[in-house]
C-alpha cells in the first residue's frame, strides 16, 4: 500500500523537477510547453472544500445532536441507518442531483447574494453581473464553486455527522443527569456537558469531512466548468479542483503530462493525508477521554 505513495512520488518527481518552484505558484496548466502549476487547481480545491464544510458543519452538527439528544428512542436506529445509507450513496448520484435539480434552484439565491451582499463582501461579488440590468441572465452563476460546494457538503455531512453522533452519545450519563438535576434546560445541559465532551469529535469529524471533500471528483467534475485561474469569487461560473483536473486531462495526456498529473495527485494525496491524520488523532484522543473534561 505504501507502494501507491512511493509510485506517485517517483512519477510525479519528474514533473516537479521540470517545473521547479513554479509548480506551486503557476496557475496555468500546459505541461507540454513546460508552463504548469497547481496554484489555480489547488486553490479551487480548497475553495470548494471550504464552501462544503461551511454548509456541512451546521448540518451535520444539528443532525448529530438531534439523533443523540432529541430524537425519540424508537426512531433513533432508523435515523442512524438513514444517515449511514446517505454516506453509501454513490457520488455520481449526488452529482446528477446537483447538476439537474439543485443548480436551477440555487441560481436565484446566488443572484440575491451577489446583488445584496456582493458589494460588501468581495467573495460574493460576480464580475460581469450588473444588478441593475433587467435583462441579465442567471448563467453567470451556474457551474460555480458555490453549487459544487453545496453538493459536496451533502456528501460529507453524513460522515461528519456519524462521527459527531458517536462522540456525543459517549458523553457521561452522570454528568448529564447532574446538569439536569441542577436545573439546566436541555440546551443548557447540551452546551455545558455534551458539547465540551464532544469537542474533539466535532473538530475531528469536520476535518475528516474536509479530507473527503478535498478528494471528491465526479460530482465536482459534473457541475463545475473548469478555469485555470485562482477564482475566489465563489458565486461566479467556473472553478476547478485537482481531482476534476485529473479526470479532465488524463485521457489525452502525453507521458510527461501524466507525470505532471501524478504530481498534482501527489499534492492532493499529501494534503488529504495530513488532514485525515490530524482528524483521526483528534478523534482518538477525545475518545480516550483526555479532552473530555
Amino acid at each position, binding site marked *: 500500500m505504501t507502494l501507491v505513495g512511493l509510485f506517485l512520488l517517483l512519477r510525479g518527481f519528474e514533473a516537479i523537477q521540470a517545473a521547479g518552484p513554479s509548480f506551486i505558484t503557476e496557475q496555468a496548466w500546459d505541461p507540454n510547453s513546460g508552463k504548469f502549476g497547481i496554484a489555480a487547481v489547488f486553490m479551487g480545491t480548497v475553495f470548494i472544500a471550504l464552501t462544503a464544510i461551511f454548509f456541512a458543519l451546521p448540518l451535520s452538527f444539528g443532525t448529530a445532536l438531534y439523533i443523540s439528544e432529541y430524537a425519540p428512542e424508537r426512531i433513533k436506529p432508523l435515523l442512524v441507518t438513514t444517515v449511514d445509507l*446517505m454516506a453509501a450513496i454513490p457520488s455520481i448520484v449526488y452529482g446528477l442531483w446537483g447538476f439537474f435539480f439543485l443548480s436551477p434552484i440555487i441560481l436565484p439565491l446566488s443572484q440575491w447574494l451577489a446583488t445584496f451582499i456582493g458589494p460588501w463582501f468581495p467573495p460574493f461579488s460576480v464580475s460581469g453581473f450588473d444588478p441593475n440590468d433587467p435583462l441579465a441572465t442567471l448563467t453567470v452563476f451556474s457551474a460555480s464553486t458555490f453549487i459544487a460546494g453545496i453538493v459536496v457538503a451533502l456528501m460529507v455531512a453524513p460522515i461528519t455527522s456519524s462521527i459527531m453522533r458517536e462522540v456525543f452519545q459517549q458523553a457521561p450519563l452522570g454528568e448529564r443527569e447532574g446538569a439536569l438535576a441542577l436545573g439546566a434546560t436541555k440546551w443548557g445541559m447540551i452546551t455545558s456537558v455534551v458539547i465540551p465532551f464532544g469537542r474533539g469529535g466535532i473538530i475531528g469529524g469536520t476535518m475528516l469531512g474536509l479530507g473527503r471533500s478535498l478528494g471528491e471528483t465526479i460530482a465536482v467534475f459534473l457541475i463545475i466548468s473548469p478555469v485555470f485561474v485562482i477564482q475566489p469569487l465563489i458565486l461566479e461560473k467556473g472553478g476547478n479542483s485537482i481531482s476534476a483536473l485529473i479526470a479532465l486531462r488524463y485521457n489525452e495526456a502525453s507521458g510527461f503530462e501524466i507525470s505532471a498529473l501524478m504530481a498534482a495527485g501527489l499534492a492532493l494525496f499529501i494534503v488529504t493525508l495530513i488532514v485525515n491524520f490530524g482528524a483521526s488523532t483528534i478523534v482518538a484522543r477525545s475518545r480516550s477521554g483526555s479532552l473530555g473534561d
Partner: protein
Amino acid sequence: MTDVLSRTEQVTQTPPDVPLTDPEAAPAKTTWTRAGNDPGAAGPEVRRSTATIRAVDIIRLIGSALAAVGFTSWLFFFALPLEGELGFVLISYGMFLLLFGILTAFDENRPTVRDRMASVVMHSLAFMLLLALFSVVIYTFGRGLEPLGFFNFFTEDMSNAGPLDGLDRGGVLHAVVGTLIMIAIALILTVPLGILTAVFLTEYPGPFARFVRTVVEAMTALPSIVAGLFVYAIIVQFGFTRSGFAAACAITVMMLPIVVRSADVVLRLVPSSLKEAARALGASTWRTVWTVTMPTARSGLTTAVILGTARGIGETSPVLLTAGATTFFNFNPFSGPMTSLPLTTFTFVKSPELNFIARGFGTAAVLMVVVVVLFLAARAIGGRGPGQLSPRQQRRRTSASRDDDYRFRGRELGVAAGAKSRKRAALPPPEPIAPSKKE
C-alpha cells in the same frame, strides 16, 4: 437521552402507595413534591404529567409557522419584488424562528427561550439533511422512471442504439455485467487480503502491526481519482490497455482499506476468553483464528465485506480512468474496454440528448437500488454482535453439541469414533442437554 429524562422524572414521581399527609410513613416527603411541602394543601394528589411536550409549545410552533408563511407571502406578492421558491422558504424560515422566539419570550425566561430555539433549530437541521437525502433518492427515481419502464432497458446493450433512437432501443445490461465482473474480481482480491490483514492486525500486535494500521488509515484518505490515476499510470507504463481487470484493481485499492478497517474493529470485539479457551485446549494460533475467532465474528466480517462492496460498486472516477467505456457486451475482463453502472451513468448524462440523460438517470436508479439492497443486507446481517446467534444457528449448535455427546459416549462404550445418527439408536439416551445460550 430520553432515558435520562424519563429516569429523572421517575424520581420526581410520587410513589402511589405512600400517603403524603402522614409524616411518619414518608419522612423524605419534603423533597418529593410541592404538595408535600405545604401541609395545608392536603387532598387527592394530582397526577403529574410526565410528557415532555406541552400543548402550549405545539400551539406556539403552529402559530408562528402560519404567521411566518403569511407574512412572507405578503412580502413576496405585495410588498417587495422578490421571487424564487428557495427565497420564499428561506425567508419564511427566518420569520418563523423570529416569531417563535418572540412568542416564547412572552411567557418564559431567557434560558427557556434559548432552549426552545435551539431545539427548533436542531430539529430543522436534521430534517433538512433527511429531506436532502429523500430528494436525492426520489428525484433520481423520478427522472429514471421513464427508461425503467422499458423492458429492453434491462436486457440489451447500447450497441444498436443510435444517438437519436428512442428509449425502446438499447439498454444497460452490458453495464450490469461489467459491474458484476469487476466487483467479483475486486472481491476475489479484497476478501482474502483484507481479512488476512485484519487478522494479522488483531492477532500479532506489535510495532509492525501499528505501522500497517497507520498505512491503512492513510489509504482510507486516498482520493479515489488518485487510486485510478495510479492504476492508469501502471497500465500505460507497462503497455497494457484499459480493461475490466485494471478497473477491478483500482476498485480494490479503494475497497481494501475500508474492509480492513471494519474487519479489524469486528475482530477486536471477539471475547478474549473464547480465544484463551482455544489456546488452553492446545490449539495453535491459526487454528484458533480459523475455528474460534472467524466463526464468532462471521456476521461482522460479512458486514465489512458488504459495506466495502457497496462502496466499490459506486466508485466512478477510478473506473473512468481505467476501464474505458463501451456500448457493447464484453465478458473478458483482461482485454478490451469494459464499463460499469456508474461509468455508464456518467457517459450518458454528459450527452446533450434528452433520451441519453433519461437513460443516465435510469442507470443511476438501478445503481442505487443495488447499493441500497447491499447496504440493507449488511445491516440485517451485522445487526447482531459477535457470538450472538440466530434461533436457527442456536438449534444447529445445540444439535452439533448433542452429536458430540453421542460420539464421546460411543467412544467410551467402544463403538468406532465418528459414529453418528445411525448408531444413535444403539446407545443409551444421553442426559438431556439444555440448549446452552451464549453469554
